[in-house]
């Protein structure tokens, strides 16, 4: 989509002007506006945005206090005693062969009752004529008008159509700080219909709560279980978010460490000191790993010994008691119950071979009964005897303890020794002045080492947290599972609830599917956007590049990676950053299907002279695929740029002021 024309009346520095951004059958769609600072470049940008969205995002502080209406026109009208003033901006846009006219007006009354006549703001009106090439274009008002504009120039990503140059180079810093307010993500969600899915998700969840409540109202304990489940699920959700953040942070730190390690490895042999440091580092690492193992062994020893020692007295006393009972014959004999039963069945005594008399039958029956009662105690005591005997062996406690503690001490001594050596060398390195001898390789190596240490510290802390969070999560999930089982039990017992229960299961199932779809789509779009931004960037960048990959985080903030593996957005030149911003913008246009124009105010203000002609050719190139409107200051519109543009067809409008009162067209050159 493009802007065909902009007509402005009484808006700020403009009194009555029309800009035609016509495109004849030309290969490029490039339009250049040249004007001194303060003449009206930014006012044009603001006028367009005011017309489309009703606000002026590029207003400087000094202009904020001035009225929207042209103050000279106001003076003229005042002098003639006129009662009102109209501000009007009309933009004609076109897309897919259809043109639409957008008109915003604001009416002001001139109030003469005051000491000094003043403008009093009245109503503001937005009108859209749809399809103006048709005989009777449809007229849209209010939200319908807004909706049509949103189809072509989505308000939430407008900063990717209308730029000022400052914004272009500080693009990513800002994006990172504010996390874009997630506007990009939101509009991608909206365009890919994920927003609808999320809405469904929300509504299904709310319906689910209703069903659960319904079930709960009928059986109060269900309500309680449900509340418990819900509470835990919320906690799990929070934990998952935290875990995710930590993992991302660790991933970053890992990458940072890796690239510094690559650097350090490259420097092997350069410095004996650093080589020694590295050697000590790996020795220290080994000992520290061993220390963890020894500590685990010690803890296990403490656990086992606590049990043995604590139960020692009781076990010994019980054993004595059992032995005493045994010796006194108080324990009933252990008789094989099977033999008794079999004897009874076969009517023959299996021990002596004689057939059973009715008297001996009766005796055996009694014996089996006694056996049932007393053998429990007998069995228990003999079982006790067997398993207690091996728990009362405490002989090795002292020597085992000594062994482990010795091992720990030796290990700790080694660690201390290595650490001391490391610190000594580190101290000599840290004595180097930092500023003056920046080139000193040892300084660089030292800084790299210190950096690694800091990152490792961060990872370590993160891992601790991660362990805690994960185990909390596991516990909560277990609890949730138990509660769900319990719930199922209760619900199944309550037959009446079958229908509600079935609905609950069904909704839960559908929610799972929907969230899977959302996840996949969002991951895919992000990957697509990463790839296409990098593709654009590598295609557009003029100098030999060493960029390898590009990553977007969950909120679509960007990281650019050097082929050495480190992030390098910070060290890019203004021109490269601007280029990256363009690449990002173009791929956002692709992804969101908003193949829109780019209006850039002072695009080269931060770009150094030598890069300007390259940048200009990039822009010229992009103008083959979409409309580009550039507003230059005369110094920006330098010879290098002119020369580049002179090879291609483009429109040029030069602006000036009429006695500093009104912006007028000084020179117009159409292709």
């Amino acid at each position, binding site marked *: 989509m493009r802007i065909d024309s902009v007509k402005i009346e009484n808006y700020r520095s403009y009194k009555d002007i029309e800009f035609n951004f016509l495109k004849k059958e030309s290969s490029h769609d490039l339009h250049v506006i040249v004007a001194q600072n303060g003449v009206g470049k930014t006012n044009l940008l603001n006028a367009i945005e005011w017309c489309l969205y009703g606000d002026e995002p590029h207003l400087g502080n000094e202009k904020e206090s001035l009225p929207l209406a042209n103050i000279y026109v106001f003076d003229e009208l005042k002098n003639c005693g006129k009662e009102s003033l109209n501000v009007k901006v009309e933009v004609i846009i076109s897309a897919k062969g259809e043109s639409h006219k957008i008109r915003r007006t604001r009416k002001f009354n001139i109030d003469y009752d005051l000491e000094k006549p003043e403008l009093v703001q009245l109503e503001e009106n937005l009108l859209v004529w749809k399809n103006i090439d048709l005989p009777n274009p449809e007229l849209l008002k209010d939200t319908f008008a807004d909706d049509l504009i949103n189809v072509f120039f989505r308000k939430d990503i407008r900063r990717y159509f209308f730029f000022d140059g400052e914004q272009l180079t500080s693009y990513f810093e800002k994006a990172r700080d504010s996390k874009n307010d997630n506007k990009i993500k939101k509009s991608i969600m909206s365009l890919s*219909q994920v927003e*609808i899915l999320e809405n469904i998700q929300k509504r299904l969840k709310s319906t689910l709560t209703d069903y659960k409540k319904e079930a709960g109202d009928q059986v109060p304990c269900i309500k309680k279980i449900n509340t418990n489940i819900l509470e835990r699920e919320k906690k799990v959700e929070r934990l998952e978010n935290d875990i995710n953040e930590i993992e991302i942070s660790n991933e970053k730190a890992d990458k940072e460490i890796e690239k510094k390690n690559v650097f350090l490895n490259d420097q092997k042999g350069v410095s004996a000191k650093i080589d020694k440091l590295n050697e000590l580092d790996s020795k220290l690492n080994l000992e520290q790993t061993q220390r963890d193992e020894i500590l685990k062994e010690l803890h296990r020893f403490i656990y086992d010994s606590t049990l043995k020692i604590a139960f020692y007295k009781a076990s010994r006393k019980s054993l004595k008691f059992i032995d005493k009972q045994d010796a006194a014959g108080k324990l009933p004999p252990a008789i094989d119950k099977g033999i008794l039963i079999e004897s009874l069945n076969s009517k023959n005594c299996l021990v002596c071979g004689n057939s059973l008399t009715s008297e001996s039958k009766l005796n055996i029956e009694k014996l089996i009964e006694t056996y049932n009662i007393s053998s429990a105690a007998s069995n228990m005591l003999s079982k006790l005897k067997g398993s207690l005997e091996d728990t009362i062996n405490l002989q090795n406690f002292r020597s085992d303890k000594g062994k482990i503690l010795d091992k720990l001490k030796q290990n700790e001594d080694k660690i201390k020794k290595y650490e001391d050596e490391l610190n000594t060398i580190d101290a000599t390195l840290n004595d180097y002045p930092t500023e003056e001898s920046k080139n000193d390789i040892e300084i660089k190596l030292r800084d790299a080492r210190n950096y690694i240490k800091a990152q490792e510290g961060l990872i370590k802390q993160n891992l601790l947290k991660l362990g805690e969070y994960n185990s909390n999560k596991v516990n909560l999930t277990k609890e949730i599972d138990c509660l769900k089982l319990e719930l199922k039990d209760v619900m199944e017992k309550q037959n009446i609830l079958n229908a509600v229960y079935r609905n609950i*299961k069904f909704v839960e199932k559908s929610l799972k*599917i*929907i969230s*899977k*779809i959302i996840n996949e789509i969002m991951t895919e779009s992000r990957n697509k956007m990463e790839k296409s931004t990098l593709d654009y960037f590598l295609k557009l960048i003029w100098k030999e590049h060493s960029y390898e990959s590009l990553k977007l985080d969950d909120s679509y903030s960007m990281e650019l990676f050097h082929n050495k593996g480190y992030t390098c957005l910070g060290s890019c030149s203004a021109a490269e950053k601007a280029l990256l911003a363009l690449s990002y913008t173009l791929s956002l246009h692709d992804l969101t299907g908003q193949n829109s124009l780019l209006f850039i105010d002072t695009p080269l203000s931060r770009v150094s002279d030598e890069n300007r002609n390259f940048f200009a050719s990039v822009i010229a190139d992009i103008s083959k695929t979409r409309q580009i409107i550039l507003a230059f200051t005369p110094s920006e519109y330098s010879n290098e740029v002119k020369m580049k543009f002179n090879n291609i067809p483009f429109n040029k409008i030069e602006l000036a002021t009429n006695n500093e009162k009104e912006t007028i067209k000084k020179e117009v050159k159409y292709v």
Partner: protein
Amino acid sequence: MNDNHSKLVNSNIQEKLNDFTANNKNMRDFILEIFDQEIKGSARYKNTYKSLIEKYSEQEGVK
């Protein structure tokens, strides 16, 4: 199920939905119909949702 839905839901979502509900046409139809309702925009969504859930979950139970 009629084919009206495929006009409303974009192909990407449709494709993934087909994948995730390969063995459960009933569930697929349910999600599509609810999607349909969502696009049409119903003010009293709860009633719509509940009647759809009840209809489809009953069918699922019968199956």
